[in-house]
């Protein structure tokens, strides 16, 4: 009986580890394989504080969580610089370094002997010294940790995390602060893993380095992948399966050493088989938006909402902008003025520097010289997400939709000033966040209706047709609430009928007071939409005028069609 209860205690610990790990890899897309190190920090801080300093529960737990969350923030720093394969390798290396420290700093950690005599938990006069007594506590803690992860994942912050996972630059372009998000999610994932570590230390009354090896990280990784990345319930099931399954080996009479190794082989095989035959895991990514607004989609807010109307009538000016890439001049002495209520066109042959100009205006590139001002406010040197907040936003030529999110979520995530983007509001001001979320659903539907995508709201962005994708790009840019909208080839590759559908949308934006600038190759589109056109070639502005004036200039035509 005790054996069975022991297994259940382990399941509850691994539920905490797997769900917190899922936040990191499944939601934020940050494959930082150092989770066992976070687990170790929680366990060791608890063991050291309670054995060497005699501090009573819950001091070691709290200290362990805070300390490990801090370590998590440090690990987030590499994740700001490198991604993908490199992040995996760097974090594996980090884990090796942590293990080396644990094994070699004998005075503090007991080296390879570990630390014995961690006191059992005492609660309400009970000593929790058997699995049966410990289980209610560990189950409760697991439920609590699950709730924290669940709340985070289902909040606007969690939605922004998934957007960042799908495409970092696009998340930035809708005003999300990548630094804040990465640091925060690492702190939470690490802190939660430390809770499991602290419980582990009290439960076994012993900590040793061999509980926190890289194999342990891979073990938890297998649970997350098995259950499905981006699905927290999946991680619960994954943890249960992978803790219980190897226990069945106990029924075969094997030497312990071989049984241990067989257990690891099962994890490895499980990982391969799942990736090979069911890469989304047992359960696919969970649907979060449906939860927020109930099962019925909200009615769209009225179109006169400030989301679509321009307000201030401010002009965006770029002065003397200059950018070179390793000796190649991309943009030279660019002076540009974008006025409210006017659709400005940017044309020129490929490589003329049009997209670079957008990058300079929106902070995605820092100019070598020159300045950008929005009204009287200088915005040069601001981070890209801050410029979006200030009211200047851009789209990308290659769309960069959040493909594994719904159409509605693509727009929702882009809405400005969401209190729920901050974790403090998510946990401390839940009613505010919920109220705002209701309003935002209405605003998002309004934006979708405006571009006539309302009936696709619950579809996944990856399932849209090409024309619908283009519309969603417009909707997402619009949702940022920015005054200045820079569209990078919003209409390329569309058939004439669809073009006729989209023209009025862009015209209405300008009429409502927005500042609109589009990069476009199709001269018919330019003639239809733009009042002012800048002609760029080799990074320089060659002409400014009405479309008719520019088209009539034979020298420009020769350059354009060369």
């Amino acid at each position: 009986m005790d054996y069975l209860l022991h297994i259940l205690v382990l399941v509850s610990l691994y539920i905490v580890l797997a769900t917190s790990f899922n936040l990191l890899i499944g939601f934020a897309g940050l494959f930082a394989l150092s989770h066992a190190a976070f687990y170790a920090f929680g366990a060791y801080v608890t063991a050291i504080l309670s054995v060497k300093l005699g501090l009573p529960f819950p001091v070691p737990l709290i200290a362990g969580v805070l300390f490990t969350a801090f370590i998590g923030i440090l690990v987030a720093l590499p994740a700001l610089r490198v991604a993908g394969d490199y992040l995996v390798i760097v974090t594996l290396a980090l884990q090796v370094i942590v293990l080396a420290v644990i094994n070699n700093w004998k005075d503090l950690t007991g080296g390879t002997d570990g630390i014995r005599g961690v006191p059992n938990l005492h609660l309400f006069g009970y000593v929790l010294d058997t699995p049966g007594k410990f289980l209610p506590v560990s189950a409760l803690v697991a439920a609590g940790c699950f709730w924290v992860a669940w709340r985070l994942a289902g909040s606007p912050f969690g939605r922004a995390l998934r957007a960042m996972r799908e495409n970092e630059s696009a998340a930035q372009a809708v005003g999300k602060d990548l630094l804040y998000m990465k640091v925060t999610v690492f702190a939470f994932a690490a802190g939660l893993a430390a809770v499991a570590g602290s419980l582990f230390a009290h439960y076994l009354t012993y900590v040793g380095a061999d509980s926190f090896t890289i194999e342990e990280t891979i073990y938890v990784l297998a649970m997350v992948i098995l259950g499905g990345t981006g699905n927290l319930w999946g991680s619960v099931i994954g943890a249960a399966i992978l803790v219980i399954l190897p226990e069945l080996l106990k029924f075969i009479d094997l030497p312990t050493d071989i049984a241990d190794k067989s257990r690891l082989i099962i994890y490895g095989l499980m990982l391969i088989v799942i990736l090979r035959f069911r890469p989304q895991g047992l359960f696919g990514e969970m649907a979060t938006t449906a939860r927020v607004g109930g099962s019925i989609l909200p009615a769209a807010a009225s179109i006169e909402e400030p989301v679509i109307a321009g307000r201030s009538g401010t002009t965006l000016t770029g002065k003397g902008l200059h950018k070179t890439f390793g000796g190649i001049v991309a943009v030279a002495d660019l002076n540009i003025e974008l006025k409210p209520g006017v659709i400005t066109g940017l044309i020129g042959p490929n490589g003329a520097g049009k997209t670079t100009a957008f990058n300079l205006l929106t902070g995605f590139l820092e100019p070598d010289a020159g300045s950008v001002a929005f009204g009287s406010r200088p915005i040069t040197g601001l981070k890209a997400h801050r410029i979006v907040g200030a009211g200047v936003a851009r789209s990308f030529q290659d769309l960069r939709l959040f493909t594994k999110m719904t159409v509605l979520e693509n727009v929702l995530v882009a809405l400005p000033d969401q209190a729920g983007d901050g974790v403090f509001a998510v946990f401390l001001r839940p009613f505010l966040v919920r109220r705002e979320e209701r309003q935002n659903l209405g605003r998002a539907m309004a934006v979708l209706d405006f571009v006539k995508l309302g009936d696709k709201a619950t579809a996944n962005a990856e399932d849209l047709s090409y024309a619908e994708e283009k519309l969603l790009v417009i909707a997402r840019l619009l949702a940022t609430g920015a005054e200045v909208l820079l569209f990078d080839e919003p209409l390329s590759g569309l058939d004439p009928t669809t073009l006729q559908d989209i023209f009025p949308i862009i015209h209405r934006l300008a009429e409502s007071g927005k500042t609109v600038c589009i990069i476009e190759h199709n001269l018919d589109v330019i003639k239809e939409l733009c009042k002012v056109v800048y002609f760029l070639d080799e990074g320089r502005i060659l002409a400014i005028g009405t479309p008719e004036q520019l088209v009539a200039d034979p020298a420009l035509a020769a350059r354009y069609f060369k």
Partner: protein
Amino acid sequence: MDLLAQLLVNGLINGSNYALLGVGFGLIFATTRIVHFAYGPIYTAAAYATWFAAMVLGLPVVLAVPFGMAAAALLGVASYLYLYRPFELRQSPPLVSLIASLGLFIVLENLIGIIFGAGSRVIDGLQYDVYLVGPTFFTSINLAQVVGLLLLTALLGLFLRRTSYGKAILAMTDNPEMARIIGIDTRRVSLLVFAIGSALSGLPAALILMKDGATPHMGFIAVFMAFIAVVVGGIGSIRGAIVGGIALGLVESIGLWQIPTEWQNAISFIVLFLVVLLRPRGLFGMAGR
């Protein structure tokens, strides 16, 4: 000063091992873009295969080494065909291959542990010479490590530049899409680099077996060293991997001058950490892309 000279020699010797591992691992990585983490246990398998050939089959060492290399090549080819290839065909994100590779890593390592036991395996009755040069000494196994690096990389260089298969590999390293378009059979080229890259790990594996004995966990450090050598030297460059590997050996060895031995491995991981963060394109800027 004598100590420093000896440390430099040791660094050069260990560095040669890392360099060869780096060349093999880097060849696979640069050509296929797969972070073949299971390179580690395949290297381990090569060491055990060499041991098996020498001690169980009774082959002389000169034959046992190629036997180990062949075993590694076979495992490398199998891992490409049965593990990575299906992911490539499905156009999975690159991370999927890496995670699957971690799975294969843990399977192979523990399989080896079960088959051969946890203790270390050594080749009994091995004769080797000790050379004293000035204040330093080294053994004929050490000599073989350095000579082996020079010989194998020279052969590899010739193969890559002179044969049509070699040129196909270089083309694919440069631009896999383009290589496919101009009619290079990328599947066959990938199989080839998995065979060659894995076989290259067989020599360092055999020499470590002769020097220190083989253990089931030896591959873990090896694949990291290979990765560090590649990252330090710049991806897609054989010369870079050699320089990177030897630099790593020297840093590690000279580090021991001031730092206690038990931290030896941590030194390399800290190097990796710093290089990836500060210069992800390699210290020497020879990166292909």
